[in-house]
C-alpha cells in the first residue's frame, strides 16, 4: 500500500490502517478521564466536607487540634496540586515514586492516580464553595428539627451543593478528556500518544492530528450534552400536580383556605 496524494485519500488510508489505534487511544483517554473525574470527585467531596466542618469551642482541645491539623494538611494538598502543572506532577510522581520509594507504578496506574488527585484538588475547592453557597437558613431549618451536623449535610446541604456544582463536575470531565494528553510524557498510550505514533509512521502529521481533533471534539461535545441532560433531569418537573381527593378528606381541626387559583378566576 502506498500513500495517496490527495488529502482525503490520505485520511481514508490512515483510518483504514490505524483506525484501531485511534479507537484504543480514545478509549484509554475516556477511561482515564471518567475514572479520574469520578475518583477525583470522591476525594473532592471528602476534602471539601472536612474543610467545612465547624470548629466548635465546646469540643475538647484534642479533637479541635486534630481537626485543625487535618484541615491544614488538606489545604497544603489543594494548594500544591492546583498550583503546579499536571504534566510536571506526572513526571514528579511517576519517577519520584520509583526513586524515593522503590515503587514501580505501571504507566496506566500512574495515569489514573495523577488525574484523580489533580481533579480532587480542584473539586475540593468547588465542593467547599458549593457548601458555603447554600443559605445558612437551610442549616438552621435542619437543626431546628433536631438533625445533627452529619444528617444536615447528607440530607439537606450536599444534595443542593451537588446540584449547584454539577456544571463544574462536567467542566472537570471535559478538561480531563483534553488534559490526559499531557500524560503522554510518562508514556501513557492515550489518544495523543497514539496519534503521534500514527503520524510519524508516514509523516502525515496534518491528517493524523486532523482526525484526532475531530475525535476529541466528538468526545467532549457528547459528554457536555449528556451532562446537561442529566442536570435537567436532576431539577425535576417544572410543574406539580395537585394531589387528588383522598388527601383532601380533611380531618377535624382543619383550617379552610381559598385556592389562590380560584381567586384569580374571579
Amino acid at each position, binding site marked *: 500500500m502506498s500513500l495517496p496524494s490527495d488529502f482525503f485519500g490520505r485520511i481514508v488510508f490512515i483510518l483504514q490502517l490505524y483506525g484501531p489505534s485511534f479507537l484504543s487511544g480514545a478509549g484509554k483517554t475516556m477511561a482515564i478521564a471518567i475514572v479520574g473525574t469520578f475518583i477525583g470527585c470522591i476525594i473532592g467531596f471528602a476534602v471539601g466536607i472536612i474543610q467545612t466542618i465547624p470548629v466548635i469551642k*465546646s469540643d475538647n482541645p484534642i479533637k479541635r487540634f486534630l481537626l485543625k491539623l487535618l484541615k491544614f494538611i488538606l489545604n497544603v494538598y489543594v494548594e500544591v496540586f492546583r498550583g503546579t502543572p499536571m504534566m510536571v506532577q506526572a513526571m514528579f510522581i511517576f519517577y519520584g515514586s520509583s526513586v524515593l520509594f522503590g515503587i514501580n507504578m505501571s504507566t496506566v496506574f500512574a495515569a489514573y492516580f495523577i488525574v484523580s488527585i489533580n481533579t480532587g484538588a480542584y473539586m475540593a475547592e468547588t465542593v467547599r464553595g458549593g457548601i458555603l453557597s447554600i*443559605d445558612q*437558613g*437551610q442549616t*438552621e*431549618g*435542619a*437543626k*431546628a*428539627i*433536631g*438533625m*445533627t451536623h452529619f*444528617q444536615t449535610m447528607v*440530607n*439537606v446541604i450536599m*444534595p*443542593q451543593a451537588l*446540584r449547584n456544582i454539577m456544571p463544574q463536575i462536567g467542566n472537570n470531565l471535559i478538561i480531563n478528556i483534553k488534559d490526559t494528553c499531557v500524560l503522554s510524557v510518562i508514556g501513557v498510550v492515550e489518544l495523543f500518544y497514539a496519534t503521534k505514533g500514527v503520524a510519524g509512521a508516514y509523516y502525515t502529521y496534518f491528517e493524523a492530528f486532523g482526525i484526532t481533533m475531530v475525535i476529541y471534539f466528538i468526545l467532549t461535545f457528547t459528554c457536555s450534552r449528556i451532562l446537561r441532560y442529566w442536570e435537567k433531569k436532576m431539577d*425535576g418537573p417544572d*410543574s*406539580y*400536580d*395537585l*394531589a387528588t381527593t383522598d*388527601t*383532601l378528606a*380533611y*380531618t377535624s*381541626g*382543619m*383550617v*379552610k*383556605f381559598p385556592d*389562590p387559583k380560584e381567586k384569580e378566576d374571579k
Partner: protein
Amino acid sequence: MTGEKVLEIHHLSKTFGTNVVLRDIDFSVNAGDVTCIIGASGSGKSTLLRCINLLETPTTGEILYHDVDITDRKMNVPSYRTKVGMVFQSFNLFNNMTVLENCLVGQIKVLKKDKEEARKKAMMYLEKVGMAPYINAKPKQLSGGQKQRVAIARALAMEPEILLFDEPTSALDPQMVGEVLAVMRTLAKEGLTMIIVTHEMAFARDVSSRVVYMAGGVIEEEGAPADIFGNPKKNSTKEFLNRFMQG
C-alpha cells in the same frame, strides 16, 4: 398537663463580641401558654428565641427545660430540639425536597419512625394547615404564605412540646398574613405551647396568654395582653405601642 412549668430562663445574657444583646433575662413558660414577644427591631427578640433553641449559645445564665439545664455541655442538643421546634421568618424549607418530603425527613431520619407512620402524620399536619393538595410541589413553586404553612406543618410533624415562631408573617405580602395567623390561632386553641415573636399586635392581643415587651436586650414589661395593651405600666411600653399603632 396545662399549667406545668416547661421552660424556665434564669439570668440569661448574650454577648456578641462587645455587643451586649440580651441582659439578665428571666421568664418562664407553662404548658399551654401562648407567649407573644413584642418590641422594636434590634431589641434582641430573635436572639432570645435562638438561645432557647440553642441556635445561639447563651453567654451566661441557664435555660431549664423540665428542670434540666440545656446549656450544659453534656446536653444532647439535637434531641432537645426535637422537643422545641422553630418556625423562621424566612421559612427555611428544604429546597431540595417536596412539601411532603419536608415533613417526612425529620420524622424518618431523626425520630426514626417508619415511613408509613411518618407519612400519615405528615399528611395529618399538612391537612391541618391546608397544604395537603400541594404535597408534590417544591418550595420554589409556592407563595410565601404557603411556604410558611408548610414550615409550620414540618415543625408540627415532629410533635414538639413547644413551638417557637420568629416573626412568622414579617416576610409575607399583606394578603398572605391572614392565612398563616389563622393556622396559629387554631394551634393556640388546641393548647400548643408557643412563644411567638410578632409585630401583629391584634393577633398578640387576641391569642396570647401573656405578652412580653422587650427593649434594648431586657424585658421591660410583661403581663396579660389586656394589661399590656390596655394599661401599660411603663412609659417606654406606652410609647412603643403608640408609635406602633400609628404605623
